[in-house]
């Protein structure tokens, strides 16, 4: 099963990383198309297969540090594709689409993932835990350079890298960070930050990107503009300007809660621990909400070191409460009712296991 190839060494599951108290992970993605082929939406099945072949050949032939796992999505079962979505390695759209398409993933760290024949021929992405946009950019840039040395990209001097959707044209870059903002939510200031971000031309999305909800107080912030500025300018604006501000707001909100509303905060955190430790039925969304409060508790020093849970196990739980991972952990397909039972039981096990 595809999922088995991927262990717990995935980059973004690692706790820590710069500004790890607020920033879960950073991501840089490039949209690229091969010259001489129609874009995926208009390509014939033959062209799509040819693009897939070429991508396979060149991606697996790259001179990179990591091993590359190549997966053809049509050959995977639905739950195997869901595992990839939950690990942030492919988009929901890519899992749902039909036709020749694939993904190349660096193993075991899963830092690099390249979707083939999603909206564009290539969607290259690099992840880093915490705030690591500069490193992610350096990494993706070398992968991009290497690919381009082997095959021509669709490019025009005026419009830059040509993409299926004009909103991605030019640099084709999307810079984003996944932030955990529970204190801003608890103190009612989140809406202000959302509006400010939108006013700055940033997109604010949920845990699974486009079309997802902000469950568990996780918010993905990303740039919208890709043309007219250099990659460095877009990156710097994000990295030096926008993200540090949001980090500061969240940290300030956390300090305020600790200093002025400690009983309220402790109550919320310990109630979350109580439910997670004792519930017998749990929906994914509810689990995410409680885990978010526990994460806040750990970071704010409300919960003692490592007990009832350490950060790394917490991040793993955030992943393992998702439906496909839950079923993978239990080794069988579960219907909705069974998932609620198993999710609750898995959480109780992990909390009991955690170094105390």
């Amino acid at each position, binding site marked *: 099963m595809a999922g088995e190839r991927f262990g717990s060494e995935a980059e973004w599951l690692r706790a820590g990383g710069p500004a790890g108290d607020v920033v879960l992970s950073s991501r840089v993605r490039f949209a690229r*198309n091969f*010259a001489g*082929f*129609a*874009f995926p*939406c*208009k390509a014939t099945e033959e062209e799509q297969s040819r693009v897939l072949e070429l991508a396979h050949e060149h991606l697996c032939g790259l001179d990179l540090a990591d091993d590359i796992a190549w997966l053809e999505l049509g050959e995977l079962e639905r739950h195997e594709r869901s595992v990839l979505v939950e690990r942030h390695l492919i988009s929901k759209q890519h899992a749902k689409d039909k036709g020749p398409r694939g993904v190349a993933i660096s193993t075991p760290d899963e830092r690099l993932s390249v979707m083939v024949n999603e*909206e564009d021929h290539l969607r290259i992405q690099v992840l880093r835990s915490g705030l690591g946009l500069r490193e992610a950019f350096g990494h993706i*840039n070398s992968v*991009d*350079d290497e690919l*381009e*040395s082997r095959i*021509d*990209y*669709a*490019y*025009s*001097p*005026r*419009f*830059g*890298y*040509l993409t*299926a*959707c*004009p*909103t991605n*044209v*030019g*640099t084709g*870059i999307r810079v984003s960070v996944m932030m955990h903002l529970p204190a801003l939510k608890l103190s009612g200031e989140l809406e202000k930050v959302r509006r400010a971000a939108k006013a700055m*031309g940033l997109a604010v999305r949920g845990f699974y990107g486009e079309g997802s909800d902000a469950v568990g107080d996780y918010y993905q912030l990303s740039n919208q*503009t*890709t*043309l*007219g*500025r*250099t*990659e460095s300018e877009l990156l710097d604006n994000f990295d030096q300007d926008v993200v540090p501000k949001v980090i500061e707001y969240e940290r300030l909100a956390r300090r305020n809660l600790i200093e002025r509303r400690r009983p309220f905060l402790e109550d919320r955190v310990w109630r979350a621990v109580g439910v997670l430790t004792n519930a017998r039925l749990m929906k994914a969304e509810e689990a995410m909400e409680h885990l978010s409060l526990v994460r806040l508790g750990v970071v704010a020093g409300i919960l003692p070191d490592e007990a009832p849970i350490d950060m790394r196990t917490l991040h793993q739980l955030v992943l393992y409460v998702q439906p496909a991972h839950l079923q993978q952990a239990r080794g069988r397909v579960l219907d909705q009712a069974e998932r609620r039972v198993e999710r609750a039981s898995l959480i109780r096990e992990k909390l009991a296991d955690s170094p105390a």
Partner: protein
Amino acid sequence: MTFAEFRSKGLLGCSDCYRHFERALGPLIQRSHGGAERHTGKVPRRAGEAFDRMQRLAELRKELADALDCEAYERAATLRDEIRAIERGPGAPGGGG
């Protein structure tokens, strides 16, 4: 692909669309990117080289025309040799790898 098809799907069919629909796409792209209308970022290394070569050739051809106007035939000859070298040089279409 027709422009109408693009408008309904929001996706272009291939690189040529950017040329065929340039006039209509221009303002649309500008609006999506806060007024920007030109790419200022990364240039693919090989496309970049081809582009630089094209620009250099255009410059040299202009200088050649000026030299001929001024009857500076020695200078013109040097320029013509330089132009030929670039046209045939490594990496140029039909030139050595």
